[in-house]
């Protein structure tokens, strides 16, 4: 039996009230895995066309939060609203880039067919691929630099290339909200920079939520930050303060604006 303990130790910051055009609203959300709270009392109000970075150490509940926003997981308490509806009702306009790019590695499928999966749409509609489908697939593949490899087998690609294809698949949806879970995990530094400038362009027309443990790259592009460590701290500015990071990581973290290689964050968790 779950007995939630909405501790008030650290109250979520009041945050700004986005009067109109809110994309994502989260109210008093709780989520547990096997009787243990992963997320507690989460409140979020993300205006449309926000570029939100969701940060936090491993096991902090970042991916869980993302899956709750996507409607893949259901909250134990509280609710998620995307464009004023339950996420699963509007999710056909979500572009989702999952974290694991190694799913089904030997699966016999071409790059083009994977990206075309972004054009399925809701329900079991039987329709041929339209001209618009083909254009969106082409644009998406061109944006990630994979159009020339559209006939390649997924199994023949490198990890970074597979990641690009999965990003293209999400873009082919023509999304209103783009959700990405560690999109730079297996791509090279050059594409990483390309990707973030692409996201900046896309951000003019869509809301973007990026889950990452990579603080340095995000800080220069994002418009808002949600720090996750069972609780969620939302800041609607691009500035990452050391105080914010300290709260989440529970250890002093050095902030560097553009730092390669990655710093490894020690996993300090209150237990």
């Amino acid at each position, binding site marked *: 039996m779950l007995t939630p303990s909405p501790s008030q130790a650290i109250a979520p910051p009041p945050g700004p009230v986005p009067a109109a055009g809110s994309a994502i609203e989260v109210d008093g959300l709780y989520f547990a895995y096997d009787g243990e709270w992963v997320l507690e009392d989460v409140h979020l109000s993300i205006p449309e066309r926000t570029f939100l970075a969701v940060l936090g150490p491993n096991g902090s509940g970042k991916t869980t939060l993302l899956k709750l926003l996507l*409607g893949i997981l259901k909250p134990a308490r509280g609710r998620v609203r995307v464009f004023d509806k339950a996420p699963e009702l509007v999710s056909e306009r979500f572009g989702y880039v999952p974290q694991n790019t190694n799913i089904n590695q030997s699966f016999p499928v071409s790059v083009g*067919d994977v990206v075309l999966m972004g054009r399925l749409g809701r329900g079991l509609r039987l329709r041929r691929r339209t001209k618009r489908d083909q254009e969106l697939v082409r644009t998406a593949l061109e944006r990630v630099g994979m159009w020339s490899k559209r006939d390649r087998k997924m199994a023949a690609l490198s990890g970074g290339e597979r990641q690009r294809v999965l990003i293209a698949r999400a873009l082919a949806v023509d999304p209103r909200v783009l959700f990405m879970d560690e999109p730079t995990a297996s791509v090279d530094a050059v594409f990483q920079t390309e990707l973030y400038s692409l996201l900046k362009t896309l951000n003019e027309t869509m809301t973007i939520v990026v889950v990452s443990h990579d603080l340095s790259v995000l800080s220069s592009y994002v418009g808002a930050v949600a720090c996750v460590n069972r609780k969620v701290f939302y800041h609607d500015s691009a500035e990452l303060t050391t105080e914010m990071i300290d709260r989440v990581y529970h250890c002093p973290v050095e902030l560097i604006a553009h730092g390669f290689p990655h710093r490894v964050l020690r996993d300090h968790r209150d237990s």
Partner: protein
Amino acid sequence: MWSILQLEFMQHALAAGMLAALACGVIGPLVVVNRLVFLAGGVAHAAFGGIGLAFYFGFAPTAGALSFSLVSAMVMGSITSGRRQRSDTIVGVLWAVGMALGVVLIDLTPGYNVDLMSYLFGSILAVPASDLPVMAALDLLIVLVIGLFYRHYLAISYDEEFARVAGVPVRLLYFVLLALIAVSVVMLIRIVGLVLVIALLTIPAYMAEQRTGSLWTMMMVSAALAMVFTIAGLGLAVAANLSSGASIILVAAGCFFLDLVVTRLRQGMGRPSGAAS
């Protein structure tokens, strides 16, 4: 050899073999890429409970097998799709319970000596002509459903979570697939028997996966391979007076291992010597 093809039962056997091979060519790849091999094995064995029930109450064994495999597929599906943990245990239990139930029911059936071997290891040479149109109809059903919703099945097989977010009714499609697996399994029980069903669902699909670039070509190649294995196995069985089901499986397994060895050798030659792991 040609004179044997004049025999009516031989023609029926070949026709039944081709129809079953088509079903396993379409469904086998979906079983393999969705990692449903164990579940398919469970469904095949649970079907034996239905066969026992059919003998006990005196109705057609195929009807008993079909209803039992459908029900057990749905039960296993609802358990596996909800909680992944321990779902293989439940499949294993249903697998054994179905078998035990079948054996006990046949024990209880008065004065009836059932040829258990033909259900366990197939009886392709005893397929009655009346079964052929039923098998053809089931084939048509399988090809139609998978053909119409090919893109949906491709999407849920490749990345179920993404498909769900995109609004694809993943659960519905999953249970329809399980029903089609149950149907295919019952067809294959006729040919190779319930013990050997898994081999014919997996071997052609695995060999096809290595050679093809898309799911539908994988299906075509596995159907072709299943047909070749069935014909060759049947030929071997007739020529050497062996059990047909086991012969088909041994031909398939022989090709499978030969393929594995050849692939290994070829990979070995491509690399500098001593690099093989």
